[in-house]
């Protein structure tokens, strides 16, 4: 664990040292539309952004456990259209019946992303990516972090509704983002204290439906909203995972997460409720909060620019 992080720190420091004075470009913009960073649904744009932290209070498990996670993730543009991502999380699992609370880290996830297009008039964008969740980078024994690497091609997209006719002004602030990915575990079976555990291929899919009061106030109709209300974005996110094989086919799990995003100049604050879609996904309710930083605005002359080119 120590060595990969030290290596990444060294690589990052080297990349930062190589930064030149390049033109700074926008994060999450497609014409009039500003797409905020959403929590559950991957963002459809490469960016220089960081979430620190995302604190998740998961719904209670079927066995009565309560899991709380604190996640860190960062996205960095290498070029205008190419970016990399890194994330990891600290987990705390409180067990029932007087059993000790477990602490540790989840597996490290990295990714490479390429922006396919941004269409300003139609407020549309999409990217393709390749994500890796690495084996033995978390607390395997204590928390069940993966002892196998999973590779996942991803496709993320976003579409704003600002190109609807002027006669539908109240619908134009809507936007939808979504993602599809498919997991390829590099090991099909792990062996633990409870016997063999099979790792299926998973199909992951999700959407986020947003209603931007910023868009309404500044691009459709001045309805008299002022700060901080003119930066609010109500959102509802949904994410599902469907195993495709290895005895678990069709056992879909997922959550629905209604919430609120406030997007300022330099940072964004989000809060969402977590509602499991079925008993396999959890029992009861959970919630999460996130503090997200726009590094391209905080450090426009250095870290907030692509490493290479404009």
């Amino acid at each position, binding site marked *: 664990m120590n060595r990969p*992080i030290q290596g990444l720190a060294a690589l*990052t420091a080297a990349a930062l040292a190589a930064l030149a004075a390049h033109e700074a470009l926008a994060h999450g913009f497609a014409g009039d539309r500003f797409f905020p960073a959403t929590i559950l649904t991957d963002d459809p744009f490469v960016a220089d952004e960081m979430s620190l932290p995302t604190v998740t209070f998961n719904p209670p498990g079927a066995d009565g456990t309560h899991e709380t996670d604190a996640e860190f993730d960062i996205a960095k543009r290498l070029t205008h259209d190419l970016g990399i991502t890194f994330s990891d999380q600290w987990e705390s699992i409180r067990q029932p019946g007087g059993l000790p609370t477990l602490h540790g880290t989840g597996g490290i996830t990295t990714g490479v992303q390429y922006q396919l297009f941004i269409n300003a008039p139609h407020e549309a964008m999409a990217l393709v990516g390749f994500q890796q969740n690495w084996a033995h980078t978390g607390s395997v024994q204590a928390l069940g972090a993966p002892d196998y690497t999973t590779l996942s091609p991803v496709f993320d997209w976003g579409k704003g509704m600002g190109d609807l006719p002027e006669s539908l*002004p109240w619908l134009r602030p809507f936007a939808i983002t979504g993602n599809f990915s498919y997991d390829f575990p590099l090991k099909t079976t792990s062996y633990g204290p409870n016997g063999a555990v099979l790792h299926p291929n998973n199909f992951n899919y999700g959407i986020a439906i947003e209603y931007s009061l910023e868009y309404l*106030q500044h*691009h459709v109709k001045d309805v008299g909203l002022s700060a901080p209300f003119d930066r609010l974005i109500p959102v509802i996110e949904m994410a599902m995972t469907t195993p495709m094989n290895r005895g678990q086919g069709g056992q879909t799990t997922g959550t629905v997460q209604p919430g609120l995003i406030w997007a300022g100049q330099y940072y964004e604050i989000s809060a969402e409720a977590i509602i499991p879609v079925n008993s396999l996904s959890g029992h009861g309710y959970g919630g999460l909060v996130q503090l997200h930083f726009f590094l391209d*605005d905080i*450090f426009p002359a*250095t870290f907030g620019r692509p490493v290479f080119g404009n």
Partner: protein
Amino acid sequence: MTHRVSGFLLACFLVIGTGGVAWAHAFLDHAAPPVGSTLAAPPPVIRIWFTQDIEPAFSGIEVTDSAGARVDDGTPRVDDRDRTLLIVGLKNLPPGEYKVHWHVISVDTHATEGNFTFRVGP
């Protein structure tokens, strides 16, 4: 892990913190005439206030009528005393709907653009 992540972040910020100055994308703050408004009389100018100071050389406003013809005077300017304010004069506008397209570059070179409409007449 907490110490390792903290160390990683500290390393990042020690490097990036040396040259960064906190400016940001310029968003539209408010406009006169207001976004989406209907006016009884034609406005002589469009004024747009942004959330950041903007670069005069790379910022502008174009106003078009429903046929797509330019109705601004073609000389947008940033106010001398308030560098968040972008102004453009208008021709005498007959009743109708008009589209305002703005594009600005904030003083740290971040580019943003946007559109809104307003109406003159009943």
